[in-house]
């Protein structure tokens, strides 16, 4: 096979050449620098850096909080998509537009806003503070929503909120009513129709949204650091670890941890591509 199929359209060499040149300059060359820098380390040194106790604690916090936030969004994202597609209520268009707010609002702004309202004296945090109405349900200590791992989950839930909604929404809107009518005429109730007819159609979209949210949450920095409290071994996230190594001019340490994060990102990117391919194939077969 030739490299390129013949076409009457001009400009392939120019646009292809520029695309490759610009991408190499901005993306590929810098990422290569990261890998080359790490390969100057011996395996033992590399392992010592990335398996240090405090660093391992950040993996647990980062992955745990990201997983939790993605799971929360799996449910709430489906709920929001469902309500937006199937029901009508005043202000629906506004809510629909607002779902993208986390994509448009700078992460630092989200971070200080969330830290302020979920702090023990904040608009929402005070309801869960010691001695308050809802706080009483959680014992005399109340429930602290900020400056601990719970705060990290809150920030990550905010940042990744649009993913599941936006992947599920178009699929849900495309489901033909006839499918549900057929199920209903065969005697299925609403819950059975949801579980056995609608949910199987939504699975690929749900999983794609879930993994997009998870991947984004792992790398997130700006919105988290204000609400996290950043206590070593308790509420430090991995990106913060890279920053604090850099601040101590420990470039080797920062690079080693960055390579671990990059590896995880690549694996997730592959998984997401696989999921999208799977869902496209499934949808293709149905039509």
């Amino acid at each position: 096979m030739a490299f390129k199929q013949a076409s009457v359209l001009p400009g392939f060499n120019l646009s292809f050449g520029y695309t490759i040149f610009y991408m190499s300059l901005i993306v590929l060359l810098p990422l290569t620098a990261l890998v080359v820098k790490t390969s100057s380390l011996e395996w033992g040194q590399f392992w010592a850096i990335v398996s240090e106790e405090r660093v391992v604690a950040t993996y647990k916090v980062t992955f745990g909080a990201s997983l939790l936030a993605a799971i929360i969004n799996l449910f709430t994202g489906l709920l929001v998509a469902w309500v937006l597609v199937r029901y009508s209520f005043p202000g629906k268009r506004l809510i629909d537009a607002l779902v993208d707010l986390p994509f448009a609002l700078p992460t630092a702004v989200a971070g200080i806003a969330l830290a302020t309202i979920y702090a023990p004296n904040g608009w929402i945090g005070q309801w869960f503070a010691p001695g308050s109405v809802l706080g009483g349900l959680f014992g005399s200590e109340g429930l602290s929503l900020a400056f601990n791992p719970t705060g990290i989950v809150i920030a990550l839930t905010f940042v990744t909120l649009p993913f599941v909604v936006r992947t599920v929404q178009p699929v849900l809107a495309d489901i033909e009513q006839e499918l549900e009518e057929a199920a209903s005429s065969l005697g299925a109730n609403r819950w059975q129709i949801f579980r056995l007819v609608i949910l199987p159609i939504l699975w690929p979209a749900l999983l794609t949204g879930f993994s997009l949210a998870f991947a984004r949450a792992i790398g997130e920095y700006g919105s988290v650091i204000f609400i996290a409290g950043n206590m070593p071994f308790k509420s430090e996230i991995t990106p913060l670890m890279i920053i604090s190594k850099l601040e101590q001019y420990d470039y080797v340490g920062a690079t080693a941890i960055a390579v671990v994060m990059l590896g995880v990102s690549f694996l997730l990117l592959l998984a997401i591509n696989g999921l999208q391919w799977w869902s496209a194939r499934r949808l293709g077969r149905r039509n």
Partner: protein
Amino acid sequence: MAASLTVNRSQATTETRWVRYALTGLALAFITLFLIVPLIAVFAEALRQGWGLFLAAFTDPDALSAIRLTLITAAIAVPLNLVFGVAAAWTISRFQFRGRSVLTTLIDLPFAVSPVVAGLIYVLLFGAQGWFGPWLAEHDIKIIFAIPGIVLATVFVTFPFIARELIPLMEAQGSDEEQAALVLGASGWQTFWRVTLPNIKWGLLYGVILANARAMGEFGAVSVVSGHIRGMTNTIPLHVEILYNEYNFVGAFACASLLALLALVTLAVKSFIEWRSEKLAEEDRRHATEE
């Protein structure tokens, strides 16, 4: 969007009224807690001590320099990625070649990389101990802890936005109109300016406003390369962080409210473009059925 669905649903294909109310209520409660309250909080905190202090926050020279740097950064980063986005979309949507799908995946790569790692890679290239560090020092060029580093990091994080808006759009439109223009004797550039560009302008605008919002609001990547020199290498988000950590909450939220306003404008433009393309699609459908 799906108005017809909600109106025309038979009893068999929708829930009872109470279930509908409960689900809508739950969804709205979640949206309120996680989206609306934080958004209101930004403006409420900024105005907590009145308009005087709010406005005073913008007369501070450091704040003004941060606003200027943010505008400069976006003014460089967005056009660079605009040219790339159009070139990449033209390559991928108009030609079949080996490695086409790999190229498409690679364009999305910066989205998968943590912003902090994005900043780090430029430190490794251009920092004092980086590959080009000694050469740059010799020629007295500063990239890291200076404006070029901030621009580079911003270009990296906004790299995919415009390309990924245009690729699906141009693939869906196909190249019939361009082929017709060429057959009628138009040159390549004439075809591009008079046929392709008018067809993709809304998608292009959509990509540009998304890239712009991210460029002006980027925090993690810029934070790594900026060095946080007040009045010199601070963008608005970094200035917000400094003020917040100094317990100057009114100042921090005042600057943050600028960015929140930008986000709201971005969402409004985005909704308008979506609404417009929906209307056009509807008209197309109507014409199709009339014929």
